[in-house]
């Protein structure tokens, strides 16, 4: 007997997970929107951020939600440096090279983590880790509720950066008309690096939101990033609202798919959505049409 309340709790669960997916996807779509490449190192950077959040808790006793305020700028700097000093110079302004360099970074980071921390899975234990709120028909973990709210706060901050600051305006100028922006005195290499930094900072915050009910492991980020690819494709490459809505949709689809078909087939469902959207409507459901 399938009660609508069980379905509803699966949907709520999906929305909670989906919000974090959306944040990972936000970073990816931001980078795509400006640099026009898919950052294949995104998942490895997420794994690295999960370890950073774990270490901050283990070595410094920092609560992950506090650590987020330190890790976000740190990963912004890391992302900035990677684009400015590694990806940019190495790719000779060729899209295909850029793809390969981000792939090389992914392999390097992921296996660097494996080399340093081995394949073990690490978790943080927080006093409020198991606290949850009773909605009457289902329980929602407090930490997941916090991440749900935090994701929208981050999206709001990003939106404010984009609309109010000069850098944000420059980013949008480069995204729309790179040559024109360059001619009007905007330093494109700097803007690329800032964008990459912002995308990487999103990943750091996502890691801090995830770690209370997730784990750190050298390939932990990959599971998210493949889903994030799907979200970005579904929401339209480069579209921020698309990433948010796409994230929630995919969270719910995965939750319901896992509920009906078991977890690994639920994943196949996501990939099939992904492939179908790519093939039928590569600009995404929310992207601009031809």
């Amino acid at each position, binding site marked *: 007997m399938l009660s609508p309340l069980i379905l509803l709790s699966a949907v709520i669960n999906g929305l909670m997970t989906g919000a974090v997916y959306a944040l990972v996807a936000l970073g990816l779509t931001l980078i795509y929107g400006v640099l026009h490449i898919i950052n294949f190192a995104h998942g490895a950077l997420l794994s690295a951020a999960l370890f950073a959040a774990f270490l901050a808790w283990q070595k410094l006793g920092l609560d992950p939600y506090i650590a987020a305020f330190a890790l976000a700028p740190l990963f912004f700097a890391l992302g900035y440096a990677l684009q400015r000093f590694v990806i940019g110079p*190495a790719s000779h302004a060729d899209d295909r090279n850029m793809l390969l360099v981000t792939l090389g970074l992914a392999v390097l980071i992921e296996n660097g983590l494996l*080399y340093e921390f081995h394949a073990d899975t690490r978790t943080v234990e927080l006093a409020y880790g198991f606290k949850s709120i009773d909605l009457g028909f289902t329980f929602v973990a407090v930490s997941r509720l916090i991440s749900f709210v935090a994701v929208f706060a981050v999206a709001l901050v990003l939106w404010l950066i984009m609309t109010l600051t000069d850098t944000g305006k420059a980013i949008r100028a480069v995204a729309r008309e790179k040559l024109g922006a360059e001619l009007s005195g905007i330093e494109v290499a700097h803007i690329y690096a800032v964008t990459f930094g912002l995308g990487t900072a999103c990943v750091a915050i996502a890691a801090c939101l995830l770690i209370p009910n997730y784990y750190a492991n050298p390939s932990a980020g990959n599971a998210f990033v493949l889903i994030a690819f799907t979200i970005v494709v579904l929401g339209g490459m480069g579209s921020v609202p698309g990433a948010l809505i796409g994230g929630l949709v995919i969270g719910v689809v995965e939750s319901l798919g896992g509920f009906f078909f078991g977890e690994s087939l639920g994943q196949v469902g996501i990939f099939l959505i992904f492939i179908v959207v790519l093939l039928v409507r590569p600009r995404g459901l929310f992207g601009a049409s031809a």
Partner: protein
Amino acid sequence: MKAFVPIAVVVAMLATVPAFLHSNVVLNFLVVTLMIALAGQGWNILGGYGGQYSFGHAAFFGTGAYVTAILQMRYGVNAWLGFAAGIAAGAVIGAIVGGLAFRAGLRSSYFALVTLAFAEVLRILASVAPITGAGVGILLKLDLGTRSFQFQSRAIFYLVILALVAVALVIARLLERSRFGAWLIAVRENEDAAMALGVDAFAVKLGAMIISAAITAAAGCFYVQYFLFIDAGIGYGSWISIEALLTPIIGGTGTVFGALLGALVVKSLGEGAKLITGDIPGLDLMIYGAVLILVIRFAPRGLVGAVTDAYDYLRPAAQKRAVEAAHG
């Protein structure tokens, strides 16, 4: 015929190796290296000559391996037939993925993504489907003999994989000298311009994808016969997608010997690192990642390109000396 002399020389030299090298460890290393070179040459046909960068060549490697294994273990098909069927199956998957992706007009990032996604779907399916042995994988029955494509001697396996690599080298050279190859390279350089000159870009890319998939599938078929085992993480895992693209890029994309040279370098680096620091997981792949970035940064045309440039740089001087010598 002259164009095939370098291939004949290289293959003949490699064929003499087992005559003076009997170490199983070294032969094993060379067998694996040639297998990766074969997978890489498959990638090179599509990525190097055609400019379509696949991040999911595991889809073909794994299909070749699984079809070879399943036909033998579940249907009692002869190993050689299974091997051929594995290659054909890889080509079919290539046709499906290529047909869909190119028909949809996917390029660059999008093409890389969709190939990656296909490989992942196959990996997940193979890890749950009963016919692929789900999470356990498939173990081939030990049955030594030529008929069952299983050899006691590593040297014979070495010669088998060398022969397969030789075929792949010849295919690349034939491609370079054919109209199809000229069209494929034109599509890589500028698809619109190629179409304006009468090139059916879709058909050309699809053809390259099928050849590419078949060659990489052959490496997968060989893997199963050599290790007698396959599971989802090996067959459809991202490691083979990465190694397949790494070898030609390091060696030199769109060149006949790039994948072979790249495989020798990459595998030597990986093994060398293991010798120095012990077998720590992640180390070899870490090095691969770093080498990939460094090669793109400093030798974007790969080692073959770097050598050619050096040769072109030195040649005028050498020619001048030769002329002076002739007159002197």
